[in-house]
């Protein structure tokens, strides 16, 4: 391996019990990016009330109680961004608040954007514009509507929809099967009165990961959070676990009909190996070789040799130990595609792959790891996922580990993979022009 690449230096410290602070300072970036990530167990009862909170928080603060005034302030800070998101990481619901903007040195009038951004982030998080102790009615109703519309919008993208349905069916008895926003019904039934307590619980009891990356001094940002948490007193942190089903007992077979031109096929597999396990790197490599690159078994056979599809790829959800294979095909070709996908997996189980294929998968993955250090979003996502691993690795270390996986390890992990769910989203067969 060429060693001309710089290592990514990460600094880690604790703010208080259950609150970690991680920073990567690098002047090669022209921006700063900060995020506060709240981690909570995914539960039917709390998923919707948790999900609405980051959106509610990011729209206003006591200092800027008006959505438009806050927007104007962000525009003045050179189009800075203050936003929210909800994700699912294994059986964990992650609520995030983000702030990003250009570094001080690129402002036209010498303003300090990074100090102001970290102050804004703290103020929306710790100091909401409560009216009589409650979130304002107008903002609550807006966010309720917008969350429902985000769920609707996911239905519009059939590739996303099919993937979500497969995961939902496959994990119907695990928290991972729950929609990260909750159901539309749950969101409709939310009461504004309950949300102040939810907010208090988030601040006091969620595990919190704060990230600060880019061209800015992390110390003042750390101090801001440190003082805010000091004022709140002692915290107690709810722990988050993810279940890992080792093997599928039987195959769920599910077909759904819809008015669409192209059918979607999603196969859900159990690998039995998740992020914390030693074999995780071997599974990552095996999935890349199987369907992660344009040199993979799936691309070369299902697409290039049989011309069945435009896309056919495999992805490994390491937090959950799941592998998904996704493809879009003509209805009449669904079974043919499925058979070929399973046949190619068997080829790997039997060891029918070349050293060139292994090396190609390794080079491709190492390339992805090493490129992470050039993107703030990439670094942030990487280190957040690493907080669930046994120890935090830098991307360069992960690249070295992947490079040392052997042929036999690939065969071994492949042989532990079992098909859990076959999901088909099938068109009505009406040929549209």
């Amino acid at each position, binding site marked *: 391996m060429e060693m001309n690449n710089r290592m990514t230096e990460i600094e880690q410290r604790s703010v208080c019990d259950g609150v970690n602070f991680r920073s990567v300072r690098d002047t090669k970036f022209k921006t700063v990016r900060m995020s506060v990530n709240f981690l909570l167990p995914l539960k039917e009862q709390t998923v919707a009330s948790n999900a609405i909170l980051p959106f509610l928080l990011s729209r206003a603060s006591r200092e800027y109680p008006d959505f438009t005034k806050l927007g104007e302030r962000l525009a003045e800070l050179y189009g800075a961004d203050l936003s929210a998101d909800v994700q699912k990481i294994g059986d964990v619901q992650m609520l995030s608040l983000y702030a990003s903007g250009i570094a001080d040195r690129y402002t036209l009038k010498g303003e300090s954007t990074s100090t102001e951004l970290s102050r804004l982030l703290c103020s929306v998080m710790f100091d909401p514009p409560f009216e009589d102790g409650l979130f304002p009615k107008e903002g609550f109703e807006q966010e309720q509507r917008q969350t429902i519309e985000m769920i609707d919008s996911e239905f519009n993208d059939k590739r996303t929809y099919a993937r979500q349905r497969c995961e939902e069916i496959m994990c119907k008895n695990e928290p991972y099967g729950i929609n990260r926003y909750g159901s539309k019904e749950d969101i409709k039934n939310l009461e504004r009165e309950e949300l102040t307590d939810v907010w208090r619980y988030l601040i006091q009891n969620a595990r919190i990961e704060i990230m600060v990356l880019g061209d800015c001094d992390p110390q003042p940002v750390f101090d801001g959070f440190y003082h805010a948490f000091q004022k709140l007193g002692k915290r107690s942190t709810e722990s988050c676990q993810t279940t890992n089903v080792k093997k599928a007992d039987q195959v769920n077979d599910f077909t759904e009909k819809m008015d669409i031109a192209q059918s979607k096929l999603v196969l859900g597999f159990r690998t039995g190996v998740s992020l914390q396990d030693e074999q995780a790197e071997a599974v990552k490599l095996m999935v890349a070789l199987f369907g992660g690159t344009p040199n993979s078994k799936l691309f070369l056979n299902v697409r290039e040799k049989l011309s069945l599809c435009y896309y056919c790829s495999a992805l490994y959800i390491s937090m959950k130990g799941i592998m998904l294979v996704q493809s879009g095909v003509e209805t009449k070709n669904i079974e043919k595609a499925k058979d070929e996908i399973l046949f190619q997996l068997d080829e790997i189980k039997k060891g029918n792959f070349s050293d060139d294929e292994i090396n190609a998968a390794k080079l491709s993955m*190492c390339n992805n790891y090493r490129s992470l250090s050039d993107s703030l979003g990439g670094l942030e996502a990487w280190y957040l996922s690493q907080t669930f691993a046994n120890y935090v690795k830098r991307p360069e270390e992960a690249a070295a580990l992947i490079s040392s996986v052997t042929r036999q390890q690939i065969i071994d992990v492949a042989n532990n993979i079992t098909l859990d769910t076959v999901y088909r989203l099938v068109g009505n067969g009406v040929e549209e022009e």
Partner: protein
Amino acid sequence: MNVMKEIKSTRIGDRYFEISHSSGLKIFVYPKENYSSTYAVFGTKYGSIDTCFKTSEETEPNCVPNGIAHYLEHKLFESEDGDAFARYAKTGASANAYTSFDKTCYLFSCSEKVYESLEILLDFVQSPYFTEQTVQKEQGIIGQEIRMYDDDPQWRVMFNLLRAMYHKHPVRIDIAGTVESIAEITPELLYKCYHTFYNLNNMVLCVAGNVDVYKVLELCDKMLKPSKDVGIDRIFEGEPDGIVESRVEQRLSVAAPIFQLGFKEKAGKSRLSAREIADTEILLEMLASDASPLFRRLLDAGLINQSSFSYEYFEGPGYASVIFSGESKDPDAVAEEIKKEIAGMREHGLDPAAFERSKKAVYGRMVSSFNSVDNIANTMASLAFTGHELFNYIDTIASAELQSVQNRLNFQLRPEYCALSVVRPVEA
């Protein structure tokens, strides 16, 4: 002989090199200090709209099937001795390509073996190999790509809008063509298009990241096959100023309606200036950003949401329009509100405070884009094809003035050239 020029920006603190290569190719190399990765784009000024053309050496125009530029992009990856992906597999580069309305670009990103990967890129793009059999094989794959887009409501709502705005201009045609049009594609037609547009004088190479300009040039000297500078006449039928129809609707499997609202503008052969583009960006930020009164009104009325509402200045050879898009329970009401706000801006003039804020916001976002090597390389390629320069564009934003932005309203956002495209849920 190669001619090299260094271009610096004190504002951004970066520099890049522009080289007029003896082969006819324009090369841009943008070294990024302390970056691990490198991103390269080898592109041609040839996209889906170039369906009718004539070189200076021909007497009769050629008209080719819709979707052929994109088809050619797929097929160029195959050479006589295997495909480019198999070669990239040995360097670890992540490779891809895309075809848009006015360009086709081949790219890779890598963190090691930069020059080996660059050699592969330069080689395969200059080595066409099309046979009956390989062309036939692609029908199924691209057929499925087209089908995928048939189900994509964002894609459909956009092309429905373009067809509602443009009578003749080929921007109204799907980039990938149709299953029927691509069935007409032959190896001979692919060679015809290739030899016309993949002339180095019509192409550009942009490399950004962990890269040395002299090593890039050394490789270019070795790999580039000099091309004769042949003029290409792109033939477009005359496009009327007006739109085709003011409202179009399609039903698809969506949960809630989505829309695009377009305002067509006059667009001739010459492209817009950097000033015109920058002023428009600021004008749109003032009109419809998160901080605008219009956005607030639409949000409060429950007519739009933050995650989907957006706007863009969509412009290219012979076309220009401002397009608003999003999800809404009542797209017609959104269209009315937007038109009302524009009328108000015309009548009362622009707010100076909003102008200052919006200028800063547009400027800041442009600065942010310099973090990403893919952004830099792709933007340099786009700008090269339109005759603009990267650092000059950011200076143009920083020096924008209110009056000039206000003047854009005389040419843009005219209600008489406005069309609304809606995709509604299928009836139960």
